[in-house]
């Protein structure tokens, strides 16, 4: 069985968010880049668990980006991917990225394609659904549990106010979130081994982007907290009712 795990590079959760060039570019100076947490903790680790149960499973990683993405790709290989493919393209358009993944996936005939539920920078939650549509495969979004019995998967996915359990045939695309697996730290053997694992560089297929980012902006600064003395909590209730008008 072949699993393709889509991995993305994102700024660290605590990175300072600022823009330049007339608010059209994200300031990358001083930003530490990480493997997108949802891709790493849930999509990749669940794939690794499936491989630990069945050694015939192969895990391929795919990333779309420039050469500076290789560090996070090596980290994912250290955690447990078998080999990686990087499509040499910088893009902020989900459809362009999904089209690259779909092109590679078609060639590789994967049984399962895992993505994280979203990236923590663009928060689009779009890649999995787009890849599934481009490949005409079923898609289970925001999965919290994944079990495999032969060629049928049983998954839990989040719905408003709860979860539902669904069955889906392979090949299948799944977007993964909390519950799927637990975060792991790569060990020394993994890190050493990752250096020699194949990382294939592929040139992109031509795609017309469907969207582009015109500009960024920061939310208006908060006016500052209005503190209410601890012995007058009823004043807080009054403010929420009369001033903020939320209760």
């Amino acid at each position: 069985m072949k699993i393709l795990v889509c991995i993305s590079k994102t700024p660290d959760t605590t990175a300072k968010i600022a823009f330049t060039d007339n608010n059209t570019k994200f300031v990358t100076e001083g930003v530490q880049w990480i493997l997108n947490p949802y891709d790493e903790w849930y999509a990749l680790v669940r794939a690794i668990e499936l491989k630990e149960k069945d050694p015939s499973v192969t895990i391929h990683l795919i990333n779309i980006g420039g050469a500076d993405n290789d560090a996070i790709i090596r980290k994912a290989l250290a955690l447990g991917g078998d080999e990686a493919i990087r499509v040499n393209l910088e893009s902020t358009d989900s459809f362009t990225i999904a089209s690259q993944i779909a092109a590679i996936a078609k060639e590789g005939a994967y049984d399962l394609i895992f993505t994280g539920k979203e990236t923590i920078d663009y928060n689009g939650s779009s890649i999995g659904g787009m890849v599934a549509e481009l490949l005409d495969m079923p898609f289970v979004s925001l999965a919290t549990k994944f079990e495999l019995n032969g060629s049928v998967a049983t998954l839990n996915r989040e719905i408003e106010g709860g979860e539902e359990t669904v069955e889906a045939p392979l090949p299948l695309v799944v977007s993964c979130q909390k519950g799927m697996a637990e975060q792991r730290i790569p060990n020394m053997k993994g890190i050493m081994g990752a250096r020699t694992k194949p990382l294939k560089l592929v040139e992109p297929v031509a795609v017309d982007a469907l969207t582009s980012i015109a500009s960024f902006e920061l939310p208006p600064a908060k006016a500052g907290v209005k503190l209410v003395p601890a012995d007058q909590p009823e004043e807080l209730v009054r403010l929420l009712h009369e001033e903020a008008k939320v209760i």
Partner: protein
Amino acid sequence: MSVLIYVDQADGQVKKASLEAASYGAEVASQLGVEANALVLGTPEVDLSSLGSQGIKKVFQVKQAELNQFDAQQQAAVIAEAVSKTGATIVVLSNNLTGKALGPRLSARLKAGLVAGAVGLPDTSAGFVVKKGVFSGKAFASIQVPTALKILALTPNAFAVKEGGGVAVVEELAVAVPAAKTKLISTNKIKGQIPLSEAELVISGGRGLKGPENWGMIEELAQLLGAATACSRAVADAHWRPHHEHVGQTGGSIAPNLYFAVGISGAIQHLAGVNRSKVIVVVNKDPEAPFFKAADYGIVGDAFEVMPKIIEAVKKLKAS
């Protein structure tokens, strides 16, 4: 030319997030001077003509019971055909949990630019630009959508439900429904609670509450206000509260009108899940808690002393 709003259902009822999407879609349509129509798949129990209240002219219903169960691939195929049959040039849906599965599929299928998580109306002064949240609530991006067909997935709780007096015409739409590949086995919903993702008011507790036995005051305040309850990651990880209540970077991301945090320090990972809330209240005994910097109102004090008094004051308010 028209705007087509996908209206989804749960347990036979139209979801609140879809009423928001309908209101937003009607506003987009009036801005562009075109009609706003809704698309309903399946057979919900409600009178769909009431969507006129949100500004919908016509409701197209694909009346097939098998569509009551959600399969993203099947629904995307049906919606795509409905878009072409109704001549829609803009598709609006909620970026709720179903919308996140459908929007991207439709975008790829129809080669239509998607704004996933729209927070405002389009700006048509230079092209077609819609704002969405990025960097986990820490910034916004204005997305240019140059394609002829556009899809706007509205962030839940970002646009108020419009309540007018209109009555929509309900019309059956014949569309071929392909077989669903996924099969629903069971549904596990928490009964009698407001889903966190749809709640306008949220009361949330953190480690400062010391133990699950102290959640009575969180639940009491929530019940008085008709609010949902939430918690921090530490609390969910310690199994004091169920995981679905966890909000933050790895948990749920919410944008209620009021987020009332008790005993939560407000680490950046927690803020990433709640910083789009309109009003944030923080009760914490540590004046240095980082959450106060992101809050609108705060009390530096012991939750065990403060909360009972707040509950009393809310009871008085509700009685007056």
